[in-house]
């Protein structure tokens, strides 16, 4: 089977985002960008399934600016076979991304689509579930274990109380949580090889999808800032503070 892995180019995990002074968004100029960490886990899981002979081909997809090609090259260097960039300079909301992915699912007919559970920029946590809805496929969200067997996949999910396992009929949609795997680093030879792999560039219009936003961002502001309090000298002083708080 084929596996589709959508990936998003986002602010690097280790960079602290700064809100623009005019309140229109977060300043991304000259900021290090990387593949969304949950998407790296998705790419890794697809590669492991291929290495276990459960999949034949991995197609990485990104919806974004021309720079998202770098993110796709990273996926190719990790081990994806080919890539599709759906290029646009517009900010595309999860619903529109899901519609584009639905169209690609229609063309490629993958057995699995593995996505990150959320992107660390907008923190929406929607695209996988929306794609599952639009394609009428089952969804295994927040996966910490994925076990493909025959015509179904067992997905162990990280839920509020612990873990839950569901069995989904293939084809299915899976979204990754943190502990599914530890993504590999691409080796230098693989990075070189990735430059020669096929990367098709398309546009949202090629898939007939209207990406006009449904939400209008009126303002982006800094959260209320916490200021550092006091440091106490020893445990006795801490006990006294806890008593003041009525805790002890």
């Amino acid at each position, binding site marked *: 089977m084929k596996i589709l892995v959508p990936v998003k180019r986002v602010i690097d995990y280790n960079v602290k985002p700064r809100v623009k002074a005019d309140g229109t968004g977060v300043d991304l100029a000259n900021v290090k960008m990387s593949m969304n960490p949950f998407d790296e886990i998705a790419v890794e899981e697809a590669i492991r399934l291929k290495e276990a002979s459960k999949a034949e081909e991995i197609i990485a997809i990104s919806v974004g600016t021309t720079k998202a090609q770098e993110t796709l090259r990273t996926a190719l260097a990790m081990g994806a076979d080919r890539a599709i960039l759906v290029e646009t300079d517009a900010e595309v909301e999860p619903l529109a991304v899901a519609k584009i992915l639905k169209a690609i699912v229609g063309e490629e007919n993958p057995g699995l689509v593995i996505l990150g559970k959320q992107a660390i920029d907008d923190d929406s946590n929607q695209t996988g579930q929306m794609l599952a809805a639009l394609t009428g496929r089952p969804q295994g969200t927040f996966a910490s274990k994925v076990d493909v067997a025959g015509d179904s996949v067992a997905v162990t999910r990280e839920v509020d109380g*612990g873990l839950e396992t569901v069995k989904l*009929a293939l084809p299915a949609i899976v979204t990754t949580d943190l502990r599914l795997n530890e993504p590999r680093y691409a080796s230098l030879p693989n990075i070189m090889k990735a430059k020669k792999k096929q990367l098709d560039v398309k546009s949202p219009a090629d898939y007939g999808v209207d990406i006009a936003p449904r939400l209008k961002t009126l303002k982006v502001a800094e959260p209320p800032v916490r200021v550092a309090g006091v*440091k106490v000298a020893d445990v006795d002083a801490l006990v006294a503070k806890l008593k003041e708080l009525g805790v002890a």
Partner: protein
Amino acid sequence: MSKTLVWVEHDNAAVKDATLSAVTAAAKLGEVHLLVAGSGARAVADAAAQIAGVGKVHFADDAAFEHALAENVAPLIVELMGHHDAFVAPATTTGKNVAPRVAALLDVAQISDILSVEGEKTFTRPIYAGNAIATVESSDAKLVVTVRGTAFAKAEATGGSGVVEDVASTGDAGLSSFVGAEIAKSERPELTSAKIIVSGGRALKDSETFEATILPLADKLGAAVGASRAAVDAGYVPNDYQVGQTGKIVAPDVYIAVGISGAIQHLAGMKDAKTIIAINKDEDAPIFQVADIGLVADLFTALPELTGKL
């Protein structure tokens, strides 16, 4: 006045607390109707009808709804949304799983994890792990929102006079099935509703040390136990202990961070605590920049001493 449909989070026996915050948020949008989808869950529907301010309780009882599989409950919600204007779910793992499936079927952009209701279609929500707060306005005819529990007061669980109305099941979609669950049973308070939380980080070394160090203090304070991602990844404690951007979002009265450096992803999950206490031997640890009370000390001597003196 618009009509809202609130997803009732439950275990087929009792209403979960997260529902009550969602009811408070929904009440700001209009009339509050509830949906109880479950199996043998009549007691849940009856209890939900007691929640203050609730009108109708739509009750769908079917084995297909026992585990709230998104494939089965989404069509039911979509049908009920024919005569409601907003679907409101708590931002629990169930709400996060189900709501986007509903939104896509309704062709609506979901607004995730709202912190406040600013107008009929305007909300604030955290982005970039809470490092920025966006105010967004929807242009869709219907709304689908998930609600951050710590941002809204809980509605009173009793005093209401809702009416339970049975709804026909939309059946089993035949796409998915529940296999099993490992749900931790604990005598301790739940993380998301605890008044006091003691959280441990990577410095706790291993699961035995975590237990021997953190649990006595938590027991003494009647506190819930949390952990940083590093401690969970290292296997000291199970995944449901994780506090942070992608784990649980908590806002207790007192949060005691032990051996936690304070990565932004962790701070995103606990910075709404009323009082933050940090114990760390590294005086430059970022956790001290947000802590109200800090103690620079080796946790392996400070914690037993603290536990002993309380």
